[in-house]
C-alpha cells in the first residue's frame, strides 16, 4: 500500500523531530519493516517468525502520546501490543511444528542481533504507550499491612468464586456458540501455547528460598519435563479437537489487542525486574482466580462441543491453581514480606489489581467481538441504509489478492464496495464476500481484514 510514498512521509517526519525521538522513530520503522512483520500472503501465520504488524501504519504517537483507557479501540493500541509481543518473544525460542516450515535463514534473521537490538531500543516508549493508561487507572496507596492485604485479596477472590460466569453465558448465548468458543480459544492461544514463558524470566538468578518456591510453580506449568504434561501441550490437544490449528501464533492476526496485552503485561513486569513484586502480585491474582474461572470455561467447552473436545486443560488448572494460588500467597508473598517488610505489599497489590483490570478489559473485548460476529448480517443491512445518505471520506483501489492485515478503527466506519469483489474477514470462522453495491458497518475496535477477490476492487470508507 503505497510504501514508497509512505517511506518518504516518514523520512520527512523523522527529520523534523528532535534527535532522540527521531532516532527512536527510525529504529521503530526499521524494526517494523522487517520482512517478518510486513505484508503476508494469507491471514494465517504458518511459521512462528511471521507476525505482521502493518508497518505502513507506524505512527510517531507510539513513542510519545499514550492513550487513555477510553481509547483502547484505537489501532495504535493494537499496533503497540503487536510490536511489544514481537520484541518480548525474540527472547524466547520458537521453531515451527511443521518441518517444511523450517528455514534456517528465518531462524537466523528473526533472532538477528541487529533486529533484536532495534526492538529493544524502542521497548521502553512502547511499554509506556501500551501500559500508561493502566498505571493511571490503578493506584495503590497507603500503609498496607499483611492482614489488610490478605483480607482485601481474599475478598476479591471470594467475589470471583461466588459470581456467575459471564463467559459461559456469552459463549453459550451466542448465535453460533461453537464459533464463539473457537474465537475464545484463539484469544487464549497466544498465551497458552507458550504458557508461562514470561515466568521463565523470573526463575533465573538468586533470590534465596523464594527462587525455589517460584520454580515449583514453574515446573508444574512446564510439566516436570514430561512433554505430554506441559500445559501448552495439553492446550494444543484442545485446539486440535476444537478444529483449530495448534501452531503457535497461527492466528496471530486474530488476537485482539486486549488479549495480547495479557501476554505482554507478564513480559513487561518480568523483563523489567524492578517490577518483580508487581509480577508476584499478578501471578497471585491469575493463579488464584483461574482455580475458579476455569470451572466455567471447562463447562462451556463441554456443553458447546457436546463432550467432543477434551477439557483437560481447564480441569488441570481448576485443580493445580488451587495449589498455585495458595503457594503464591503462603510460600512466596508472606515469606517475602517477612523478609523484606510490608513496604513491598503495595507493589504486589498493584500487580494483582493491574492484571485484574487487564483481564476484565480482555473479557469485555471478547464479548464485544462475539456480539459483532453475531451481528455481521445485520450490519450489512445497516450499511445499505447508510450508504444512500453518506458521502465517502476516501476511496481505495486495490488489485486482486491484495490483503489488508487485520486491524481496527477508533470509530464506527462504513465500508462499501464500489467495483469488484472483496472477502471481508472478521474471524477465521467468519468471512463474507462483498460485491459492488454491498457494504458493512465496522464497529469501533472490532478486528477485521480483507482480501480482494476480483481483478481489482474499488471501495470507499466513511465515518458513521
Amino acid at each position: 500500500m503505497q510504501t514508497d510514498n509512505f517511506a518518504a512521509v516518514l523520512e520527512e517526519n523523522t527529520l523534523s523531530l528532535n534527535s532522540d525521538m527521531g532516532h527512536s522513530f527510525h529504529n521503530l520503522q526499521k524494526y517494523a519493516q522487517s520482512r517478518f512483520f510486513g505484508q503476508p500472503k494469507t491471514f494465517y501465520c504458518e511459521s512462528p517468525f511471521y507476525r505482521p504488524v502493518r508497518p505502513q501504519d507506524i505512527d510517531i504517537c507510539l513513542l510519545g502520546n499514550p492513550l487513555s483507557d477510553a481509547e483502547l479501540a484505537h489501532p495504535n493500541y493494537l499496533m503497540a501490543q503487536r510490536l511489544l509481543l514481537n520484541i518480548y518473544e525474540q527472547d524466547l525460542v520458537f521453531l515451527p511444528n511443521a518441518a517444511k516450515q523450517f528455514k534456517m535463514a528465518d531462524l537466523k534473521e528473526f533472532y538477528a542481533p541487529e533486529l533484536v537490538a532495534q526492538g529493544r531500543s524502542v521497548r521502553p516508549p512502547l511499554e509506556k504507550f501500551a501500559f500508561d493508561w493502566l498505571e493511571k487507572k490503578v493506584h495503590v496507596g497507603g500503609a498496607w499491612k499483611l492482614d489488610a492485604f490478605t483480607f482485601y485479596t481474599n475478598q476479591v477472590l471470594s467475589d470471583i468464586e461466588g459470581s456467575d460466569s459471564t463467559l459461559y453465558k456469552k459463549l453459550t448465548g451466542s448465535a453460533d456458540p461453537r464459533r464463539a468458543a473457537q474465537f475464545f480459544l484463539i484469544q487464549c492461544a497466544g498465551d497458552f501455547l507458550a504458557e508461562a514463558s514470561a515466568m521463565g524470566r523470573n526463575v533465573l538468578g538468586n533470590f534465596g528460598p523464594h527462587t525455589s518456591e517460584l520454580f515449583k510453580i514453574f515446573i508444574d506449568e512446564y510439566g516436570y519435563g514430561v512433554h505430554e504434561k506441559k500445559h501448552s501441550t495439553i492446550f494444543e490437544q484442545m485446539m486440535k479437537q476444537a478444529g483449530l490449528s495448534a501452531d503457535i501464533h497461527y492466528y496471530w492476526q486474530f488476537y485482539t489487542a486486549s488479549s495480547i496485552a495479557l501476554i505482554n503485561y507478564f513480559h513487561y513486569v518480568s523483563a523489567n525486574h524492578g517490577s518483580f513484586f508487581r509480577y508476584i502480585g499478578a501471578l497471585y491474582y491469575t493463579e488464584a482466580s483461574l482455580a475458579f474461572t476455569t470451572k466455567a470455561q471447562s463447562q462451556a467447552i463441554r456443553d458447546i462441543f457436546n463432550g467432543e473436545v477434551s477439557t483437560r486443560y481447564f480441569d488441570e488448572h481448576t485443580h493445580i491453581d488451587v495449589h498455585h494460588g495458595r503457594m503464591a500467597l503462603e510460600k512466596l508473598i508472606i515469606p517475602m514480606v517477612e523478609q523484606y517488610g510490608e513496604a513491598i505489599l503495595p507493589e504486589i497489590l498493584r500487580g494483582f489489581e493491574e492484571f485484574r483490570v487487564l483481564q476484565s478489559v480482555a473479557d469485555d473485548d471478547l464479548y464485544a467481538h462475539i456480539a459483532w460476529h453475531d451481528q455481521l448480517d445485520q450490519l450489512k443491512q445497516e450499511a445499505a441504509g447508510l450508504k444512500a445518505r453518506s458521502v465517502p471520506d476516501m476511496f481505495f483501489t486495490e488489485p486482486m489478492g491484495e490483503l489488508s492485515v487485520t486491524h481496527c478503527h477508533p470509530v464506527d466506519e462504513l465500508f462499501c464496495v464500489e467495483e469488484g469483489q472483496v472477502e471481508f474477514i472478521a474471524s477465521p470462522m467468519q468471512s463474507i464476500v462483498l460485491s459492488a453495491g454491498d457494504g458493512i458497518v465496522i464497529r469501533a475496535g472490532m478486528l477485521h481484514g480483507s482480501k480482494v477477490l476480483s481483478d481489482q476492487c474499488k471501495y470507499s470508507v466513511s465515518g458513521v
Partner: protein
Amino acid sequence: MKIVIHPVNAFNMLSVSDKTYFVNQTAYATQILPTTCPHRQGPLHFGKLSDDGVVIVCPWHENKIQVCNLEKKALPSVKTGDTLHVVTPDEATIRMWREYLPIESRERSHEA
C-alpha cells in the same frame, strides 16, 4: 476489617472513627493522607503541595512534610478507575464529605 467502596470524586475528606484524612490525587497516585501535621497537629489538608508533589507545607508553622512519610500513616487503598476501595477496621465509623481544599485547586507540574 471491612472494605469501604466509594466513587473517588464523591469525597475529598474522610474520617475513620476519630481520625481524619484527605485525598491527595495525581495522575499516577491516589493517597488518603492524615490531616494532622506531625509537628503540632496543624491542618495539612489546608497546606500547600510543592510543585514536584514531594512535600506538603503545613499552614501553621510552614514545616515541609514529606508525602512519602505521611503515606506511612495513610489508609490502605486501591483506586481502580473511578472507584476507591479503602480497608478499615470493622468497628470503625466512616464518614466522607467534600470541602474546599486549596491543595486540590493548584496546577501540579509533577502530573505532567
